[in-house]
C-alpha cells in the first residue's frame, strides 16, 4: 500500500489550500490516485486553514489521516499541532519566519526555513507557500518538480498569471534551500 499523506497548514490567506490543490492537480497529471480535503468552515484571513493531500498508487479509502508522512507548517500553531503527529521517518517543513522556536523532532527530516523572508527577497511574501512546497518536493520527491510547474501553468487563476515566473522561482528557491541545508536527507 504505497500512499503518501501531506498536511499543509497555516493562517487563512497564506495559500495553504491552493498549495495542496496544486500538488493534487500535479499528482493526477502524473497518473497517481489522489485526494484533497480542506478544513472548511467559517474561516477567513487570519483564521486557521489546512488541507490533507493523499497521493497513492491505489484506490484511496480515508481522505483523512492521523499521522501524515509530511507536514508543511506555515505558522506556529500548525507546528505545535502537527509536529508530534508526523510518522517516524517523515518530513516536516517549518516556516521559521513565523515561529519562535525551531522544529526539533529527531526521528523525522526537519527543515526550518525562513519562508517569508525568502519570499520577500523574491519580491512578494504571498509566494511563501510555493517556497515551502519547493522545499517539500526536494526532501520528499513524491512528484517531479517539472510536473508541479506544468500543473501551476494549467491551474493558476487568470488574474495571477503574470506571477507565474515568480512562482517557479519560489519553488526553485525553496528546493535549493532544502538541498543546501539538508544534504544528508536527499
Amino acid at each position, binding site marked *: *500500500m504505497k500512499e503518501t499523506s501531506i498536511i499543509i497548514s497555516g493562517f487563512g490567506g497564506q495559500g495553504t489550500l491552493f498549495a495542496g*490543490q496544486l500538488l*493534487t*492537480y500535479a499528482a*493526477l497529471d502524473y497518473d497517481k*490516485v*489522489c*485526494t*484533497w*480535503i*480542506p478544513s*472548511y*468552515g*467559517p474561516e477567513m484571513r487570519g483564521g486557521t486553514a489546512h488541507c490533507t493531500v493523499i497521493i497513492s498508487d491505489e*484506490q*484511496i*479509502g*480515508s*481522505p*483523512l*489521516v*492521523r*499521522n501524515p508522512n509530511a507536514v508543511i507548517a506555515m505558522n506556529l500553531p500548525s507546528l505545535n499541532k502537527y509536529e508530534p503527529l508526523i510518522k517516524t521517518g517523515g518530513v516536516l517543513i517549518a516556516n521559521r519566519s513565523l515561529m519562535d522556536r525551531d522544529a526539533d523532532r529527531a526521528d523525522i527530516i526537519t527543515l526550518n526555513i525562513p519562508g517569508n523572508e525568502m519570499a520577500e527577497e523574491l519580491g512578494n511574501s504571498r509566494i511563501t507557500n510555493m517556497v515551502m512546497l519547493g522545499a517539500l518536493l526536494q526532501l520528499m520527491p513524491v512528484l517531479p518538480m517539472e510536473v508541479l510547474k506544468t500543473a501551476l501553468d494549467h491551474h493558476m487563476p487568470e488574474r495571477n498569471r503574470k506571477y507565474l515566473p515568480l512562482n517557479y522561482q519560489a519553488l526553485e528557491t525553496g528546493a535549493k534551500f532544502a538541498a543546501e541545508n539538508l544534504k544528508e536527507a536527499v
Partner: protein
Amino acid sequence: MAKKLYKGNEAFAEAAIRAGCEGFFGYPITPSTEFLEYMAKRMPELGRAFVQAESEVAAINMVYGAACTGKRVMTASSSPGISLMMEGISYIAGTELPCVVINVMRGGPGLGNIAPSQGDYYQMVKGGGHGDYFPIALAPSTVQEAVDSIALAFDLAEKYRSIVHILVDGNLGQMMEPCEMPPMQPLRETPPDWAVSGAKGREKRILSSIYIDPPDEEVTNLRLLKRWMEIEASEVRYDELHTEDAEIAIIAFGTAGRVASTAVRQARAEGIKAGLFRPITLAPFPKKEIAALAKRTKRILVVEMNTGMMLDDVSRVIEGKVPIEFYGRLGGVTPLPDEIYDEIMRISHNIDAPAPENPRMEWVTRLEKILEGEN
C-alpha cells in the same frame, strides 16, 4: 474520457446536468453551497431552469411544481435545509412524482455545525416527511460513485415515480477527487403519460396529494407500498471488500465506509481477516445480503458517523445470529482509519467472546475513554 479533478459538490452538479436535469431550485447552505453556485452558472448557459428561491420551503415547492411537468428536476441542500423541505417532500411523495434530493449532511441536531455527519440517516432513509411513503436512499462513498449515482437516481425516480434521496456528507461535498464525467445525455423529448404538460386535445390530468376520502387514500398508500416492495426486490445495491473469508465484517456506508476500507486493508496486510460490506442503497436496505454475510462471518462491526442508526437496521436483519459491535463518531467528527483499525484489533483479540449485550452501550463506554484521551 480522461479523469479530471473536481470538488465534490461541483462534480455532483455537473453530473446532474449531464443526466438531463432541466430544473434546479435551491437555497444556499454550507457544506452544499457550491452545488447551487455551479448550477447558477451552468443551467442558464444551457437554457435550463435555475432558481435561487427565497427559502428552502419555496425551493422544494418549486421542485414539486416542476416535477409535475415530467422534467428531470432536483434540489440539493444540507441538514437544516432538508428539514425545512420535509413538508414539500411528503407532498411530492403523496403526488407520486419523481425527483432527486441531495443532502450534503452536517452535524446536528438543530443548527449544529457545518462539519461532516451521517446523523440524518433516519430522516433520509426512513422518510422524514409525514405519512406512509418510502423514499429510495443512495449513499455513495467517493466523488466518482456520487457522480455515477446521480443518473441512476433520476432513472430510479422516473421508473418508480418516487423520490430518490442521495446522502453524502460534508467530506464528499468539499473534497477534491479525480473523476470521469459521464457523457451529456439527450433531454427527454416527450413527457411521461402522467405529466401535466397542457391538456389541449386530451383528457385533463390532475396531480395532487389530496385524497379526502380515506378509502381513496388507503388505496393510494397500498399502491405506494406495492411499488416499494418491487423496489426492495430489484434495486438493492452494495459493495464488498474482502468479505468472502472475513471473520470480522465491518458494515459502513458513505464516508465511514471509505474510511473503514483503509482500516480493512491495513488489517489484511497484517493477516487479520477483516472485510467491509458497504450498502450503496440504504433504502432498500441489503437485508438478504447482510443476513448471508452473518452466516459466514464471526463478528460484525457497524461503523457510522452517528449514534448507531444503521446499527438498528443491521440488528434487525441479523436477529442475534452473530455478535454485533458498534463504533461511531458524532456531531461532525469523522473517524480516522486508526480508530477503526483499533476496533478491528480489539475484536480480533476477543473473537470468541460472548456477544455484547448492548453494542451501543459498550461503545459509549469506549468512546468516553477515547474522548478523555483526546482532550
